[in-house]
């Protein structure tokens, strides 16, 4: 079972590619577009900004905090306001940490997204509720068959 606290998402993933290759997928726009969203704009240096059109105008954005290629990447994460709606998770409000460890010829990727409102806060704060709605929309559209799934599928 995966371990999950109320306020973070943590995952570990073995990838049959070198840390150098994986790193490019984290900081190069054209490669980011192959797994994360439709289009990315980024300035990968500490203090540099990024924006990703994740799905159909849902824009994730934030700031690079720490880059230690090809080992460790830290950036803030949030969603830009849409249509004048109140935005519970503005850019900068949560943080994503990714660590890449060499493992044989491949990479062990450790992913952590924290600073998220948990179910409890979501239940008691309208902010959390809006937040989950926004995320669900994005996640749901990411499920579309039209999403960039490779020809070999999963």
């Amino acid at each position, binding site marked *: 079972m995966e371990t999950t606290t*109320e306020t973070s998402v943590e995952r570990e993933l073995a990838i049959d590619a070198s840390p150098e290759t994986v790193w490019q997928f984290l900081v190069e726009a054209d490669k980011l577009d192959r*797994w994360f969203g439709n289009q990315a704009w980024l300035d990968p240096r500490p203090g540099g900004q990024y924006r990703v059109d994740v799905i159909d105008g849902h824009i994730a954005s934030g700031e690079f905090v720490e880059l230690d290629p090809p080992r460790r990447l830290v950036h803030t994460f949030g969603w830009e306001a849409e249509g004048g709606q109140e935005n519970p998770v503005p850019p900068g409000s949560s943080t994503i940490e990714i660590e890449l460890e060499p493992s044989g010829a491949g990479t062990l990727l450790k992913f952590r997204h924290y600073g998220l409102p948990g179910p409890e806060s979501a239940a008691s704060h309208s902010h959390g509720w809006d937040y989950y709605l926004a995320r669900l929309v994005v996640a749901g559209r990411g499920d579309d068959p039209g999403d960039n799934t490779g020809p070999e599928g999963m």
Partner: protein
Amino acid sequence: MEAAVKAIAAPRRRQILTLVRDGELSAGEIAAHFDVTRPAVSQHLNVLKEAGLVSERRNGTRRLYRARPEGLVELKEFLEEFWDERLSALKREAEKEEKQRGNDD
């Protein structure tokens, strides 16, 4: 969760959920907030109810609707799926790239 995703996909249903987030409302009260017919609102409410995102309570002849906090826990799980899907795609694309480079050498 697929039902919840579909339920949320419509902007109107997201607006309805926001309305009943903090308190119970009847379909008529909800309809009064929008420029839509009451049957349309009822239909949206049915979709939300089937997705487990709102609960319905009878009070005399009235039916009152409210967002279900439990639905949020499920949404939290869905958020995790969001990352699982993205990270799987990252793995797939990085491995594809690595293979292609191996072939090019």
